[in-house]
């Protein structure tokens, strides 16, 4: 491995590569962040009405989670390819495909989080005279918040990795650099740098969202550790 790292003609790590291609890396990073955030935000927006529907009509829980579970097993390569005739070479092909995957994680965590609220607590809230809507807003949602936020965090970090597949249709953030590095005669420096940037971005999102979780639900701090 050390040999490989030191290969002079085609090094894996090269500061010169980073300097010479700085603008390209920054542009790829911006696209990567844009695609990730758009997908997750879209997933959250769609999951809220679905979660409300599941809460009103609990019979639908099984079918909705089951269907999204099946969507989840569809390879991202296939989903992007299926959407491509509809949306063509546009970022939406990637955003909608990735939102489908993020949707399952977010929706499932909202549903499970709300289901996990203890019955005693709901009884107590009911006995105190809270209406159904008040119970949801003041009791259930705050108690489910850690699970919901954890779902958003997991979905976001997974999305960062999957954005790279968008390279297939030309919108893959760092993935586009990875693939073009590979096609460009195994350009090691570009492949490894773009992969590491992608990991770094995932770590940054993970930490940022962990901080959000701690700030929004400070009472979980002890449990989480």
């Amino acid at each position: 491995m050390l040999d490989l790292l030191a290969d002079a003609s085609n090094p894996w790590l090269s500061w010169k590569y980073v300097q010479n291609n700085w603008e390209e890396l920054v542009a790829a990073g911006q696209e990567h962040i844009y695609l990730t955030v758009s997908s997750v935000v879209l997933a959250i927006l769609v999951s809220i009405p679905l979660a409300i529907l599941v809460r009103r009509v609990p019979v639908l829980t099984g079918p909705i989670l089951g269907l999204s579970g099946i969507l989840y097993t569809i390879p991202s390569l296939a989903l992007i390819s299926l959407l491509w005739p509809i949306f063509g070479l546009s970022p939406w092909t990637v955003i909608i495909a990735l939102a489908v995957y993020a949707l399952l994680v977010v929706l499932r965590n909202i549903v499970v989080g709300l289901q996990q609220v203890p019955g005693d607590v709901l009884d107590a809230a009911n006995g105190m005279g809270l209406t159904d809507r008040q119970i949801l807003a003041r009791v259930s949602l705050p108690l489910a918040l850690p699970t919901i936020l954890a779902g958003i965090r997991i979905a976001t970090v997974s999305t960062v990795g999957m954005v790279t597949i968008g390279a297939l249709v030309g919108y893959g953030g760092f993935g586009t650099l990875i693939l073009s590095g590979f096609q460009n005669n195994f350009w090691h420096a570009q492949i490894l740098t773009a992969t590491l940037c992608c990991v770094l971005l995932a770590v940054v999102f993970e930490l940022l969202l962990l901080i959000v979780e701690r700030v929004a639900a400070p009472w979980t701090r002890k449990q989480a550790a």
Partner: protein
Amino acid sequence: MSLFEWFTDPANWTGENGIPVRTWEQIQISLWAMAIALVVALPVALTLGHLRKGMFLATNIGNVGRAVPTLGVLTILASIPEIGIGNLAAILALALFAIPPVLTNTYTGLAGVDDEVRDAARGMGMGGLSILSRVEVPLAVPLIAAGIRTATVQVVATASLAALVGSGGLGRYVVDGFALQDNTLILAGAILTAALAIIAELFLSGVQRWVTPKGLREQTRAEMELQEIPAG
């Protein structure tokens, strides 16, 4: 050519680039990757879980797996001259991504066995190895099976990406379709890879239910469902 014509064209069902051969390639790549992953992950997870050590490693390795892009690992392995493009790079990359779910679930399953049950087994005169094989593993089977199922479905689905680094499998149709600007080929490949992944999921959930002792079926479902990792 329409999709229907493509699927009913006998030429697409025979030869090197036919559907049966490509499907079998994808299954072979997946089986090899899973074999490697199980050989690496199971002994480590069984040992750590039995000794109740390495909790941090076992529970955090999944997070690491999520953060690393499959495409990056595939291309890195394929551009190492000793490995080269083709099926080997795909098998190794997929094996790497199959290790975390197997490791985490097996560890969690073993660590979740009640201390009193282990004490009772020890009180009956059982040694470490027989406690592991006759008490801990049977009780942990639901979670172990869930981990293997999750990993396998993920591997079968992700194996389609391997075509991007020159290996076989059903992803070939998609990648070749994009290269040739052939929409029918792209869609046919997408449908085939999706179908294979869904069939694998349905088949393996059946197997999982079958190997899980009746008494343990309901209890573990909720725990497992939160642990899944998306397919590449």
